[in-house]
């Protein structure tokens, strides 16, 4: 039986202009949704893993991460 892929609970978007690349959101994401990109800014790597816990939004010091619930 093929592994059932979890459906993401929320959609993460990152404002690249506001992100200063501190890496705090990547550290506090429990599912590894976020990663640092080559130009040292946060990027969404595994969007399907998101559980919508909201850590990234709360921990981002730059108001650069925002979540949207997926119905």
């Amino acid at each position, binding site marked *: 039986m093929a592994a059932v892929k979890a459906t993401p609970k929320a959609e993460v978007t990152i404002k690249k202009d506001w992100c*200063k690349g501190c890496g705090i959101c990547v550290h506090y994401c429990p599912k590894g949704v976020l990663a640092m990109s080559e130009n040292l800014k946060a990027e969404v790597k595994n969007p399907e893993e998101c559980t919508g816990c909201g850590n990234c*939004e*709360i921990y*981002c*010091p730059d*108001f650069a991460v925002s979540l*949207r619930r997926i119905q």
Partner: protein
Amino acid sequence: MLQINVENLRMQKLPHIWCPGCGNGIALSALTRAIDKLGYDHDEVAIVSGIGCSSRSPGYLNFNTLHTTHGRAIAFATGLKIFKPKMKVFIVTGDGDCTAIGGNHFIHAARRNIDLNVILFNNNIYGMTGGQASPMTPFGRTATTAPYGTVERNFDIMELAKAAGATFCGRATAAHPRLIESLIVKAAQNKGFSVVEAMLPCPIGFGRRNKLGGPVEMMKYLEENSVRVQKAQKMSEEELKGKFVIGEFYNKPAPEYIEEYDKIIAKLKK
């Protein structure tokens, strides 16, 4: 944004000026969420600040805001509160602004028990002016004015506030943003002088000089070395060495300044 109400922010002023990984943004975001949770109207909230990194905060908040002179945030806020007692006043101040330049204002406002909420952004250093040691720089840490480590002991603001007469004291770190939020909510609900200390990482001004690593390492350091107040009561002094106690320290109502003042006026009018 799911948890942050963008109407509380002046979006046209963002992104803010703080360095990458600065904890001020985390505490600022907690403050906006706390005000949202309290359900205050935008017009009835006033944010007052002094000078420093943290004191840039009101510029990004969409409430009544007052950016004042160095150390005098509490003095201006006292005047504002007396003139408009219905206003919910939050003071955003830094460790240097509040405990050095504004130290006397702080202890006397606590003594009066005037209904103000001080949110102390403690980043252990004077960040904006170039990394000088503040009264809250921990003993032995390096700063531009203490190149071989500071030989002064740092303030424990919780003890200071409690001794001076504050009726609500609480501390949290940037690694516990939900605790900062809930402490601010409780502080606002307390009728009297409330102090919330937010211990924040300053990776550029403080961390780099003390070789504490980048923003993530500093956040881990705050997380690993913090102990809840309930747990700390069962620990010995030896075990608590180098740890920060977080949580609600003190919450005991006392006569509030403006209420007492109004009573005098009412009495004399008779």
